């Protein structure tokens, strides 16, 4: 049994393990430092999910893309345009919330389809394709409206503000009143996405093909898989998840403006990398990306609780973590190569 755990912890499992441990260390550190200010309250913990629901969904999509060895830097812009489209359709065109949501999700799928075609069939570098996608979506946002549009659609606001109380948890606030913590719809969507994506990667032929293509495309082809359609599907899925993330994001922001979610793709990439996904492809877990997103959340929370540090410390801290994990991955790779080279003699 111990052998088994040991072997699981070797290599890439270890990276995931480090991420999860790091999350709890940060959480405990926060709890020790700011325990007197309710850091340990369940609501603070759930707020991590509430404020990062969009990021979690986007990071899951990004994980799929990264596992195939690709990259997508368009998702921040897609989220921006999705928010803007939702606001525009509901407020300017007076569409129903339901129709607007369906339309933006369809937009995400088509967007993914085009990018996927260019990457998988025309074999253009994913970075360049999605760079184009990024420009396109951001420009489109401005074409729709260069002013901010706030959403006042009742159905949508109800969806956004509907607190879902977790009545099975009870805690006492600092005035001693019994409270139930709550979450929003966006969190439910995010967790569902994580669960479904996990199952998709683990238990379907498509999921395994994603790993195989990322591990060695040539081998995958020789073993009878179809790398091209696999990649196309991944980009379509990612487009869909990006628009879903946009929807979740919009539930938080309830409006659309041009600069919305700028640079979000890098947060998603960072979350995935911190969660143990290798940018060389073939390795990654959605659970890792979930924790990667939460680590960003916890750093933000700690910095908020600390009070005097400015928000840009979050970015510096994330970059430092990113650096740490990237170098860790690099070191791991060279250790493995060395070990194998020795075992061959």
């Amino acid at each position, binding site marked *: 049994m111990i052998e088994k755990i040991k072997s699981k912890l070797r290599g890439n499992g270890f990276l995931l393990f480090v991420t999860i441990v790091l999350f709890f260390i940060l959480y405990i550190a926060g709890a020790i430092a700011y325990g007197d200010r309710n850091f340990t309250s369940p609501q603070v913990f759930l707020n991590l999910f509430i404020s990062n629901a969009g990021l979690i969904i986007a990071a899951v999509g990004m994980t799929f893309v990264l596992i195939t060895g690709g990259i997508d830097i368009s998702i921040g812009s897609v989220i921006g345009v999705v928010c803007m489209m939702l606001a525009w359709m509901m407020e300017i065109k007076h569409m129903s919330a339901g129709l607007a949501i369906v339309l933006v999700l369809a937009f995400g799928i088509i967007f993914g389809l085009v990018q996927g075609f260019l990457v998988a069939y025309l074999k253009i570098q994913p970075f360049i394709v999605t760079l184009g996608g990024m420009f396109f979506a951001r420009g489109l946002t401005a074409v729709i409206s260069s002013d901010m549009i706030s959403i006042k659609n009742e159905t949508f606001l109800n969806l956004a503000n509907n607190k879902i109380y977790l009545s099975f948890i009870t805690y006492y606030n600092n005035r001693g009143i019994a409270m139930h913590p709550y979450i929003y719809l966006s969190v439910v969507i995010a967790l569902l996405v994580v669960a479904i994506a996990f199952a998709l990667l683990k238990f379907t032929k498509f999921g*395994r093909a994603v790993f195989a293509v990322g591990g*060695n495309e040539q081998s*995958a082809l020789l*073993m009878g*898989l179809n790398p091209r359609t696999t990649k196309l599907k991944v980009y379509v899925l990612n487009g869909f998840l990006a628009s879903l993330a946009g929807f979740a994001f919009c539930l938080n922001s309830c409006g659309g403006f041009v600069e919305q979610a700028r640079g979000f793709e890098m947060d998603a990439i960072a979350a995935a990398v911190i969660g143990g996904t290798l940018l060389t492809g073939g390795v990654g877990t959605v659970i890792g990306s979930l924790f990667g997103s939460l680590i960003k959340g916890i750093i933000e929370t700690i910095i908020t609780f600390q009070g005097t540090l400015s928000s840009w410390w979050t970015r510096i801290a994330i970059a430092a973590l990113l650096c740490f994990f990237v170098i860790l991955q690099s070191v791991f790779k060279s250790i493995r190569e060395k070990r194998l080279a020795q075992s061959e003699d």
Partner: protein
Amino acid sequence: MSDEKKTVLSMKNISKSFPGVKALSDAQLTLREGEIHALMGENGAGKSTLIKVLTGVEEFETGEIIMDGKSIVNGSPQEAGMNGISTVYQEVNLCPNLTVAENIFIGREPMKMGHIDWKTINREAQKILDNLKLEIDATELLENYSVAIQQMVAIARAVDTQAKVLILDEPTSSLDEGEVEKLFEVMNMLKKRGTAIVFVTHFLEQVYAVCDRITVLRNGHFVGEYKTEELPRVKLVATMMGKEFDDLADIKNKAGNGSRRNNEAVIEAKGLYHKGSIKPFDLTIHKGEVIGLSGLLGSGRSELARVIYGADKPEGGELYVNGEKLHVKAPIEAMQKGMAYCPEDRKAEGIIADLSVRENMIIALQAKRGMFKLMSKKEQEELTDKYIEMLQVKTANREVPIKTLSGGNQQKVILGRWLMTDPDFLILDEPTRGIDVGTKTEIQKLVVKLAGEGMSVMFISSEVEEMLRTVNHMGILRDGKKVGELEESELSQENVMKAIAGGDK
């Protein structure tokens, strides 16, 4: 006895040509149930093309493949697989990031209620591995195992697809002795079950250890099919290399060429080695001497040269250049000491495809002089023109990209690159591979001429004829080890082949 066995597959009169080359002409191969069949031949003999045709990677032009009495055409590796032909390649074609079990089952995973049935996969995979008596944990990631084990997993995957014919394309090139033993066990087990195995290898020992029959190809032609016990080693080597003399004159001027063993030593290696590629060896190379390295492909002949040059950093032993001790960390240091190295793989390690002939020629000299001492345009052009003329490189002009030249002319450009640096010691690894006969002779003549002018040359080639014509002294390698040297007086085709084959079996 094995004659009575049923023929499983036969390939008849297979021809295949690539632009400019006839890769196979009337090649054939017959496989019987439950036999291990060695496919032998030197470089360019057509082994890999024959296998590619068989597995559907390449199409063939004429001939037919008959399996179980029916003529089949394999359009793709998948189709070949469905016809019962599985292949294990030299490079492991699996996904290192997946578990062993998954690698065995991917693409045909058992499903249960709409999801992949991991329990069955792991259990069945373990069963397959146990059946082959392999101690591998099916749930471990493939990349945590050595290449040898990965090779075994590839075989397990191939076997599990119910293959009637299993092709092992140089599976042993990265395995050690113990691992090879293990592989042989598995092969013998499969043989007993009635699988026909095609075994491609360049290790003679291995052929004689497991194979029942041998088919030899040479220059794309079928030379013959032999029972292993009826074909002694020396004869096999001779068959593979061919004895036909091409009508080239003996270019070596024996009289003026005498032994140069008494000249001062230029290179002296003592116990130099590199793990996994070449075992410790001693070698002395004298001024004005052409030393040949002979051995079959994979015997370590290229690796020996690479260690001396520092292309692979030596992991132990000592190297003296002109009596001075040298620790090479990077090739530039060897270059500064007067070495030059034409690598075996011209495309991957020699040419800079997109750069011009001129740039490709002057770059080594430029690197030797340093970044800030750019050679003047005039000097570059003069030198390039000089060597284009001297080596008779056929090119439209000196500014065309080298990739547009033919192989032989590319090789001449690379030669020019090194001659320009005015080396004391020149290493030529397969300088004549894949180039036409005329150019071959030119290069051989050049080598002899350079040696006459006092340059020491290391000449590596898989053609014994060519070596005999050019070298004064020969080192013999087998299985990653230098096993002997032949003096000038001992140089003859028979002696060389005997030495390469080893033993008198």
